[in-house]
């Protein structure tokens, strides 16, 4: 695959091992500007490691990583300036209030003061956190913490969003707001890479989807291409996923449990 400027992210022959466990097994991956890209796979398939490699949180053992035209290994700080990240289980500073935390993140990304105030207030209102923003994060529910983490990723208007299970714990209204927001951001050329286990969300939201299994890339493409690859015309993502990952023996498993 040739490196082209239409790609927001380019991974070439990227591999990562943890002792005797292969987390990522020589994968090639391109993510285009302004698309919502879904990264799916069973537990421990290498999704989170791949996301961390893109952000520069994990150094690959081999291969090259280019993010927004920048070599992530050469200038990680320049990459991070343009990326918004929400980890799978965001550990926030629980001793700060929601407002203090967002103010902190805004300052970290050097967001101009009046813009910071405006964006924080807009997002707090949209995700219905108004009235609780002065409370310490330690007292927030899981969903509220997730909302704060999402706002902090959007705050500096990043060009690339890396979201690991972004809708986890969100109430239906907030989840819908986040989904619509991500869709609108694609019109502003903002790229989103998200990992999720909720296949209905991936099917509804993502322009293209990659399915990972044991560190390898099993399939990559839009729904039409994935159906073709799985030889399951007219099927949904769940059926495709189960077939490709070889985990379609659901009926037998359930029957064994009921014995």
């Amino acid at each position, binding site marked *: 695959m040739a490196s082209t400027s239409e790609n927001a992210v380019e991974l070439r022959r990227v591999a990562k091992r943890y002792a005797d466990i292969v987390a990522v097994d020589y994968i090639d991956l391109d993510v285009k500007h302004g698309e919502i890209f879904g990264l799916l796979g069973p537990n421990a398939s290498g999704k989170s490691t791949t996301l961390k490699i893109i952000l520069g949180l994990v150094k690959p053992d081999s291969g090259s990583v280019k993010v927004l035209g920048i070599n992530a290994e050469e200038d990680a700080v320049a990459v991070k300036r343009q990326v918004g990240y929400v980890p799978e289980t965001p550990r926030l500073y629980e001793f700060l209030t929601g407002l203090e935390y967002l103010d902190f993140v805004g*300052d970290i990304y050097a967001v101009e003061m009046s813009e910071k105030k405006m964006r924080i207030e807009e997002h707090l209102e949209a995700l219905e956190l108004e009235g609780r923003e002065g409370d310490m994060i330690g007292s927030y529910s899981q969903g509220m913490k997730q909302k704060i983490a999402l706002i902090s990723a959007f705050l500096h208007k990043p060009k690339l969003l890396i979201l690991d299970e972004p809708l986890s714990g969100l109430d239906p209204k907030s989840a819908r707001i986040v989904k619509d927001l991500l869709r609108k951001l694609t019109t502003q050329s903002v790229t989103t890479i998200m990992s999720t286990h909720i296949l209905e969300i991936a099917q509804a939201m993502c322009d293209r989807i990659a399915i990972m299994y044991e560190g390898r890339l099993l399939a990559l493409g839009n729904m039409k291409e994935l159906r073709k690859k799985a030889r399951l015309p007219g099927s949904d993502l769940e059926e495709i996923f189960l077939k490709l990952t070889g985990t379609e023996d659901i009926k037998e498993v359930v029957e064994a449990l009921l014995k």
Partner: protein
Amino acid sequence: MKWKNVVRLISVEIKSGRLIRGQRLRRYRESRGLQYLLYGGACVLGLAIGLAVGYFYNGASDPELKSLIYQGAYSLFPSLPTLILISSMVFTMMAQIQRAGVTFSIQPPYWLPITWMEHTLASTLAHLIGVPLVSIILVGSGIAAFSIFLGELPLATFTIFALLASAFLASTTTEIFRVLQARLTGAVYKASGKAAVWVRFIGSLLFLVAFYVVWFALTSGAGFVTLIEVVAGGQQAVWFIPYLWLGLTLASFMSGLLAQAVLFSLASLLFIFVLFYLAVRLNARFGLYEPPAITVSRGVYAPKVGLLGKLGFSSLEAAVIRKDFKAFTRRRELMYIFIMPLVFILMPLMQQLGVWGEPAATEPSHFLFAWILLGPGAIMAVMLGTMIIGEEGGAVWHFFSSPITARSFVKCKYAFIVLLSCIVTIVCGAIGIVISSPSPDIAIALLVESVLLIFALGAVSLGAGIKGADFTEVPRPRMVRPLTALVTMLLCLILASAIFSPLLLYAVTMGYIPIPISLPKIDLYVALSISAVMTAVIAFVSYRIALKNAKEFLVRAEI
């Protein structure tokens, strides 16, 4: 009550220690023999001491010495339950204080079919595992062995039962205290509104300082001996205090007052039962109590540049410094950093004032003043430096995913260490000046020296803190690897001695510290200048090392 449930819950509590000991979680293995080694060792040691004292007693030819040993043992036995009660209470409360800093506390699994009585009993017994149980085994085996030589085996048996009951009594009291404290602090935070953060900060400091001062007073110097004497001689006079009834049972038994012994023992059992019942009821009522959310700010949000921005820090650096300041005033486990300097001032001060029965000093001590001015700031700088990276814990991903350079990272962390340590030095210096009234020359020299130490030791410990950071948070934030902490402490001690040596030479030549030989005189300002040069070299080199470590840290981040 299902006893098997109690045993299983205790087993879980014991296993929670695995995370503290920092063992590998993958392919986890542990030796069962090692778990019991401590208790077996205490038993063997206790028996050895008991036998040694017994043989010495048997072999003593002087009847006066023999009688003295017998009398000593006879007065010690009834004091032991009260002494074990005090020590168990101190240790179980210490464990509770440490638990206040546990990120993920071990909550009662209320969704499982376990009763509050089972949970309370398991929690009470589990808190005795460790130092309290080791103390009981050590003392118990010792008196059992010695009593054979005295011919007092029944008394030793009663004493061992009394020791176990005392420890249980102490742990039950701590359990009650824990539940009430959680409920009370929650109510106080709710009532204090926006001031809750400062109420918690000052309240925690006062409690911990009082606790440690009492602890040091009891365990250092003549304090413990005084305590034994007071308990041995005084518990009869205050018989109405139920906590002393176990000791009084033994005293009555030894005096041949069997009816009184039975009465006190029954009263003790009743008291233990009542306390335990109270603990169960309190746990059932408040055991799953969640303290109310602390609301820190209300009203319109107005971002501002702030003092740090005006001092030339970038928005990123200022944000990190502000965040760290909030961390050290709001996170309980980090408040300890303020306790050590306070205790270090209070201990010599109380000694000077003769609080612990020792004669008070007639004139202000130069040493005390130097210690108050130099000690707290320097200790603070070392502690902050080693902890300030690891305290980020799981939230360290913010630094890895943020556009922060190594230069900014080290700059803001170092600035925080220096700023906070200097504030502590100024506050301590003001207290020292009020107490000791030193000459202006000496006061200024020590103040400058303290700031020099902060700059040098802060840089050294920050470099080490980056390299040896430990982000483990479960169940307790570790912050720094023990070996790193130890090596840094030793290195800082050596460097501090080197930086302070010119001033020490000045103190010697001026006769503040008498020595038998005469040394060439050194001017105060020359001594300070030499210290300043040494500080500049140490701080510069250490800062470069910290930068190098930070570059590696930010690149090799793997979370």
